[in-house]
């Protein structure tokens, strides 16, 4: 998993539990490794480009962790399919893993 992809995953995980957060990261890393190369290659290109863009926008400063989350939210609502699909892919992987790994909150 590339550095920017790790930051995206960290910004999408909602659990405060460090163990769950690490397990979710591990799951997403495995999912990316298991992807067919033609999909993974495209995703790497997107991650490099978007990571550079996020850096330029100042969304990756350690003091502003919410900035990346805001940027991801904007990309997810973007009319550009490639941006929206990028966020949705990571959100799906994170959501599934987090729901499977973290106990459901009492309703």
């Amino acid at each position, binding site marked *: 998993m590339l550095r920017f992809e790790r930051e995206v995953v960290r910004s999408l995980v909602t659990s405060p539990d460090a163990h769950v957060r690490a397990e979710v990261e591990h799951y997403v890393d*495995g999912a990316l490794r298991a992807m*067919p*190369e*033609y*999909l993974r290659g495209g995703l790497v290109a997107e991650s490099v480009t978007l990571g550079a863009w996020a850096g330029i926008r100042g969304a990756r400063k350690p003091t502003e962790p919410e900035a990346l989350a805001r940027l991801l939210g904007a990309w997810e609502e973007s009319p550009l*399919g490639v941006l*929206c*699909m990028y966020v949705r892919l990571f959100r799906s992987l994170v959501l599934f893993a987090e*729901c499977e790994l973290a106990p459901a909150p009492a309703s």
Partner: protein
Amino acid sequence: MTTIDTDVLVIGSGAGGAVTAFLLAQGGRDVTVVEEGPWIDPDAMEPFSLEEMVAKYRHRPAAALGSPTIAYAEGRCVGGSTEINSGLYHRLPGYLAEAWRDEFDIDEFGPDALDAYAKRIEAELAVSRLPGAPPPSSALLERGATKLGWRAVEFARVFRYDTAGRGVKQTMTRTLVPRAVDAGATVVPNCRVLRVLRRDGRAIGARCRRTEDGRVEDLDIRADHVFVCGGAIQTPAILHRSGVRGRVGAGLKVHPMIKIAARFPHPVDHGGVPMQVITEFGPNLSIGGSASRRGQVAMALAESSPDFEEALADWEHVSVYYAAIRTEGAGRVIGVPGLRAPVVTYRLTEADLSRLARGLVHLGEALLAAGATELYPSVRGGPVVRRPEGLVDWWSSVTRSRANLMTVHLTSTVRMGQARSRTGTDSFGRVWGVRNLRVNDASLLPDAPGVNPQGAIMALAARNCEQFLSEA
């Protein structure tokens, strides 16, 4: 380099491969089965869990390129996709067998012949219907259909039930794989086929790479006969890697599914997959239920709306359902030198998208009639619907850029039949141009059957095995 000699090499251990291994071993042949994935105890993991996905799925997920992309799932373990599917069982519809026979000029292929093989498979797998009342998630579909005057049926499943009514899915690792081993077959897990070996126009075995406890070993398996049974994605990829092309890989067919996460005012079960299917709009459109653990519910909710947290907190009242179609469009599998996974593409036509929209609306109607209070469609920005009059907005929302589609049924990449310009094998799975090389899996089906294809694959594989044994 280790070398193994065998009479018959079977590549893959799913619905096609397990039948092939079992019947040929039972018929007295020396059979070796190679499977790329591990051999996992079927009781070791909860169905549809993250653990199962990590251990038994090939990708998490993969997608066929196209507009829209279609996510797909394949098993990668001994037993193949039978280890991870819902276990719904359906014979190949008779009218399809007749249509395919005529269109692709398939010899000795018809409903009566296939039904005879299907009966044998059903006896082997204990195909049956649920004893007693269906679970709520399944009964809800029936209730919705009944209120609307639509036809719904309970599909049989490859489940064996005990006296208390508890069912266990009869996957290949619980049934035909151990029976093949009992009949003398050898199964080699964690063994990837690099290519089929050929000499003088005939298959003579396969070069494989086995990974065991971190050690990697190359293996040549010399065989008099090779059956490729890797499924509709891996089989054409193996053939391409082996230099066999022609019509191989063209004509991929899937059942694209569009989903709805439906919220009810009462809890719904989440342990299995509903066995009721609305067949009112068949054969080209069917409506049923999906796996609905908390993880799947979350993904389905998130596909339509970013504001899903409140519904997710109430996940025990939410279940996921689908509408699946047969498509006019088709796809392609292309083995690319240097890439481990083949490139998969799929093209949906405008008519297919229209059919998906119709399916989504009909599914919504059924779920509202069943008492659902909120419907989240797998359409980006698709409006959450609470009343029937809201469904009209969905007609225009199923577009190439907004629909989120997935499939688990993949067929038709090495079609069978005597019409050589449109098929990859003859009527019995013999690959054109390479002697002693056969295909015996979902790839052979000329089209997607509109129902779970496992029954059709297994009956077809049994038919082809009988033909093979009669030749010897």
